[in-house]
């Protein structure tokens, strides 16, 4: 091996409140579908939170946290850009064609934290072919809602609609990995990523603004925990 380091993090998130993800239908009476992905092992579609959503969420926090960590000498300059790649142009033009070193998978419902630990140890991204019951479908509910007219302060004409929501306390598990790091960059990346993940508890998730909390974070290789800063941040999740 030519001096290459890699880093893998597994995250178990808990959804608080009623959460919605997905693309809206034109017909508001039927409500937007939840993002789903087909699970080969279970031969059905599973609720999921798309990796691009999670990547954007973590990236946003990394950009906010980066100056603080940089000022305290915990990371090098431009680390967020190095890990997440070049951002697309502000007017929404085409993104860079060079893939970023980070890879963020979709989040799927898990039975419990122990199941997530087993998935983490088995090797990354076997979710959609796992048939051992560690992955389970999330409970959902159909909620009927109305839109309030700000002027009349009553229900707006014809604005009754339904939403499929994910039940509160659903545990969602996803992994992210960063490859091709030089010696030393793995420790700094771990510091930045763990600090960003810690902020997810301050984030709103999905279209209805449900909040998240982090139940557990797993990190590999474990030698990274010998770094004091990484150990301190990892301790917040235990």
């Amino acid at each position, binding site marked *: *091996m*030519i*001096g*290459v380091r*890699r880093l893998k993090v597994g995250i178990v998130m808990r959804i608080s409140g009623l959460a919605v993800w997905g*693309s809206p239908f034109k017909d508001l009476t039927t409500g937007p579908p939840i993002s789903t*992905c*087909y*699970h*080969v092992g279970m031969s059905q579609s599973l609720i999921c939170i*798309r*990796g*691009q959503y999670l*990547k*954007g969420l973590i990236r946003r926090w990394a950009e906010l946290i980066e100056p603080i960590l940089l000022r305290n000498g915990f990371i090098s300059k431009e680390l967020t850009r190095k890990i*997440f*790649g070049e*951002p*697309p142009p*502000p*007017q*929404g033009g*085409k993104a860079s*064609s*060079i*893939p*970023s*070193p*980070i*890879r*963020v*998978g*979709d989040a799927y419902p898990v039975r419990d934290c122990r199941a997530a630990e087993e998935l983490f140890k088995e*090797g*990354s*991204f*076997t*979710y*959609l*072919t796992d048939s051992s019951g560690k992955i389970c479908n999330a409970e959902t509910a159909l909620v009927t809602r109305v839109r309030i007219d700000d002027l009349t302060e009553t229900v707006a004409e014809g604005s009754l609609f339904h939403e499929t929501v994910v039940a509160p306390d659903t545990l969602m598990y*996803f992994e992210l990995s960063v*490859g*091709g790091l030089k010696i030393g960059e793995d420790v700094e990346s771990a510091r930045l990523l763990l600090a960003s993940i810690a902020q997810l508890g301050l984030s709103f998730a999905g279209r209805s603004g449900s909040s998240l909390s982090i139940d557990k974070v797993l990190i590999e290789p474990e030698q990274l925990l010998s770094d004091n800063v990484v150990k301190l941040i990892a301790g917040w999740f235990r």
Partner: protein
Amino acid sequence: MRIFNVIIKFLTPAIISAIEAYRGMLYLGSSNRIPGSTVRGALMTWALNEGLVSKEEVDEEAVKPRYGITPFLASPEGKVLYRDLNIAHALAFRFKKGLEDQRIYSIGINELIRMFSEGLESDPVDALSTLIARESSVIDEAGDELKCSANIEGVMGEPICRDGGEWRVCEGVRSGLYIGVSIDRERKSVVPGALFGYEYVEAGSTYTGVISCENESVMLRILENIAKSRAKVSIGKCVGRGYGLAEVSVDEVEPIKPLDVREGDYLALEVVGPLSLISELRDSGMPVLAPPEPGRDIHVRLGSGELTLSIKAVYGGVESFRGWSLRRGVPKASLKALTYGSIIIARVKGSVNLINRLPYMGINRLGSQGLNILLPLTKDFIPRYGGGRP
């Protein structure tokens, strides 16, 4: 030359983009096939990230490649390309209705080869017309026998699998459409008009292809490493967002039985990797690649040996191919080529033993990009309907 059957199994949904439409707002995928160049890029990137190869070695191998790579076909697990997995050629068809198992038949490559070799026909269109006229009566009778309409449809380019002695189109992969938006970082909301869609294949989809390497090749080192323990490789678009993670496994295999061909013989060549040859040089010296036509020669050189294939007929289609070079960070030159499954009838001259390299290394160094890979055929591997002489 060492030959490896490579199996790719997607662990997450994957986006293998083929067509960009609506000014970058919709990307349609090629769900039944992954171009060889895409897999090549993914394996090289993986090897670089793992520290197995250096950037200098990758650059050197790109300029002087010592390997060939076929396209990867959607197929059930356990199939080996050229043995029980292939691409349906231009003369293959199936009945539209009636046969539940959708067996594949051929109009008959052998008959075409015979017409040209015995001088019965010299015009490609006349030859094909004669063949179709002859087969029509047989196919019409099928309607009575199968109790269905005798309407047939061509299946050129589709992956086909052999079960027993019969060929069938491989079961397709499941696909879906992912709709995304672009976020304006200043306003923290959606950029107006920035709605786009990508077609993806579902997790669990399996693709099979062949990579062949000379002993000094960097690709050989990569494959030997994967053979020890399966690799997790990212393939296609949006890999940073979790798409395209695949488990790659390799098995070394023996080449297919060499053909018994003599100088002056006629044979058919099926296009496995799109075929494009230098047709002219621009004033700047840059070559222009184009699909070959009857009357042209294909030259294959290895050491002091040279094989010449004089093209007598071409059956199939032409497709445009574009791509992006991750290595150089620039678009690849677009080219037109004979598409997958096209058939060429050609006469052999020169070093006939080089024929057996064509399905693996291709006719020139473009074989390392999944182009110019040809499967030589002295007889059709797909049966004629009714079991007639193929």
